[in-house]
C-alpha cells in the first residue's frame, strides 16, 4: 500500500510539479538571456492541459497501437525511476541489490519510446529523427555508465543506491574528490544529451527536421511526451545529485541545500543550452567516444587509486 502512495505521490505528482517548474525556469532563463520577458509561471502546465483537450490524429498507414503506446511506455518508466529514486533518497536502507543498474536501464527507456514512436508514425522526417536519436543513445551511454561506475568504485563496489547514499553521508560527497569531479562533469554533459538539449538536440533539430520523432504526434500523445520530458528534467539531475552530491535531505536547513543543488544543475543545463550551437551527429559521436570516454576512464583510474 505504502508503495502505491510513493508511486502516485512522489513518483508522479511531486516529480511532475518540480519538472514543470524546472521547464518554466529553463524557458524563463532562456528568455532573459535573449532580453525577452518570457512565459508566465503556469505556462508548461497550460500547454499540457491544452494539448490534452485537442484532437489526437493518427497518421494513415502507421501502426496504431505502437504509435499510441510509445508515449505511455516512456512516461511509465519515468514515473517508475523517479519512485525508485525517491524511496532510496528517503529510506536508504530500503534499497535492493542492483537498483543502480535498474535505474540506468529505466533511464534509457524514455529515449527508446521516442524512437519507437518516431518509427511507428510513418513519416520520413520522424524516422530520420528516430535514427539520429538511436545514434545519440549509442554515443552517450558509454561515458555515462563509466562515470556512474566511478561512484560504484568509490563506495566500495556496491550496486545499491542506498549504500552509495549512506557512504556519502559518512565520508562526504564524491564530488569533493578529483575522480568524482571529473565523473560529474562527464555525467552533466551526458545528461545534456539525454535530455536532448542544445548542443545535443540533434534528433529534434527544429530547423532541419522540424521536431523530429514527435512530428506526427498531436493532442494527448504529444501532451504525454511533453510531460515525460519535463519530468526527465527533474529525474536525471536528481539521479546525479544522489550518486554524486549526496542526495536531497528533506529536514531543516538541508532542504535548502538540496534545492540549491538542484537549481544549480538546472541553471547549468540552461546556460550550456543557451551558449552553444547544435553539433552534427558525427561530431557528437566523436565527442562522446573520444574526449568524454577518455575523461571518464581517467576518473575511473583515479578512483581505483583512491583519489
Amino acid at each position, binding site marked *: 500500500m505504502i508503495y502505491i502512495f510513493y508511486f502516485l505521490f512522489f513518483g508522479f505528482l511531486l516529480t511532475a510539479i518540480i519538472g514543470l517548474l524546472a521547464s518554466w525556469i529553463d*524557458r524563463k532563463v532562456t*528568455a532573459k538571456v*535573449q*532580453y*525577452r*520577458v*518570457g*512565459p*508566465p509561471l503556469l*505556462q508548461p502546465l*497550460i*500547454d499540457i*492541459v*491544452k494539448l490534452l*483537450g*485537442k*484532437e*489526437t*490524429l493518427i497518421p494513415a498507414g502507421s501502426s496504431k497501437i505502437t504509435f499510441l503506446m510509445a508515449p505511455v511506455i516512456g512516461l511509465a518508466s519515468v514515473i517508475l525511476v523517479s519512485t525508485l529514486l525517491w524511496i532510496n533518497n528517503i529510506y536508504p536502507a530500503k534499497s535492493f541489490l542492483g537498483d543502480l543498474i535498474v535505474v540506468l536501464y529505466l533511464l534509457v527507456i524514455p529515449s527508446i519510446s521516442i524512437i519507437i514512436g518516431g518509427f511507428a508514425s510513418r513519416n520520413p522526417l520522424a524516422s530520420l529523427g528516430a535514427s539520429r536519436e538511436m545514434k545519440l543513445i549509442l554515443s552517450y551511454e558509454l561515458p555515462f555508465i563509466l562515470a556512474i561506475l566511478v561512484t560504484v568504485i568509490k563506495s566500495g563496489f556496491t550496486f545499491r543506491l542506498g549504500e552509495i547514499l549512506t557512504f556519502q553521508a559518512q565520508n562526504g560527497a564524491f564530488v569533493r574528490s578529483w575522480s568524482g569531479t571529473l565523473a560529474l562533469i562527464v555525467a552533466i554533459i551526458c545528461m545534456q544529451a539525454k535530455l536532448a538539449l542544445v548542443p545535443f538536440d540533434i534528433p529534434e533539430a*527544429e530547423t532541419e527536421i*522540424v*521536431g523530429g520523432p*514527435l*512530428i*506526427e*504526434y*498531436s*493532442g494527448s500523445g*504529444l501532451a504525454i511526451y511533453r510531460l515525460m520530458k519535463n519530468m526527465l528534467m527533474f529525474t536525471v539531475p536528481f539521479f546525479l545529485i544522489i550518486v554524486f552530491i549526496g542526495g536531497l535531505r528533506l529536514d531543516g536547513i538541508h532542504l535548502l541545500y538540496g534545492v540549491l543543488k538542484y537549481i544549480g544543475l538546472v541553471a547549468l543545463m540552461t546556460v550550456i543550452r543557451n551558449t552553444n550551437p547544435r553539433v552534427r551527429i558525427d561530431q557528437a559521436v566523436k565527442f562522446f567516444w573520444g574526449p568524454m570516454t577518455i575523461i571518464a576512464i581517467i576518473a575511473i583510474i583515479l578512483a581505483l587509486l583512491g583519489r
Partner: protein
Amino acid sequence: MSIKLKALLKSPWVFHLSTGSCNNCDIEILDCLTPRFDIERFGMLLVGSIKHADVLLITGSGNRKSMERAKRLYEQMPKPCLVVAVGECALSRGMFIHSYNCPVPIDKVIPVDVYIPGCPPKPEAIIAGIVKLIEKVKKGTAKK
C-alpha cells in the same frame, strides 16, 4: 467557456504558412518573436509541424498550387483550431487580384477567423489582430 478553450487561448501554438507571399509579411511575423515584441510572454510559440499547431497563420495570395496544400494542411490540423490571415494578399489577393494564378481569395477555401490588413502589417497590428481573435473566441463567435 470550457477549460479546453481557456487553455487554448493561453498557449496558442502558431504554424506559419506562406501561400505565395512576397516574404515581407513573413518577416513581420518573425519580428513578433524578437525581444522587442516577444509574443512568448503570451504563451505563443512558432511550431514546425502542423500536427502541433492551434493557429494557422496564412500569408500570401493563395495561388493554384499552394491552395490545395493549404486546404490539406487545414484538414490535418487537430481541432479546435483557428485561422488567421495576415497581409493584404491573404485578405483579398492585393495587387495580384487580376492574376491568372490567384482565382479566389483564401477565405473562399478555408474558414478564416481573423483578418489582419496591411502590406505588410506592422508587428503591432499583428498582435492587435490576435487580441481581437481572443476576444472573439471568448464571446463564442469564432468559426473554430
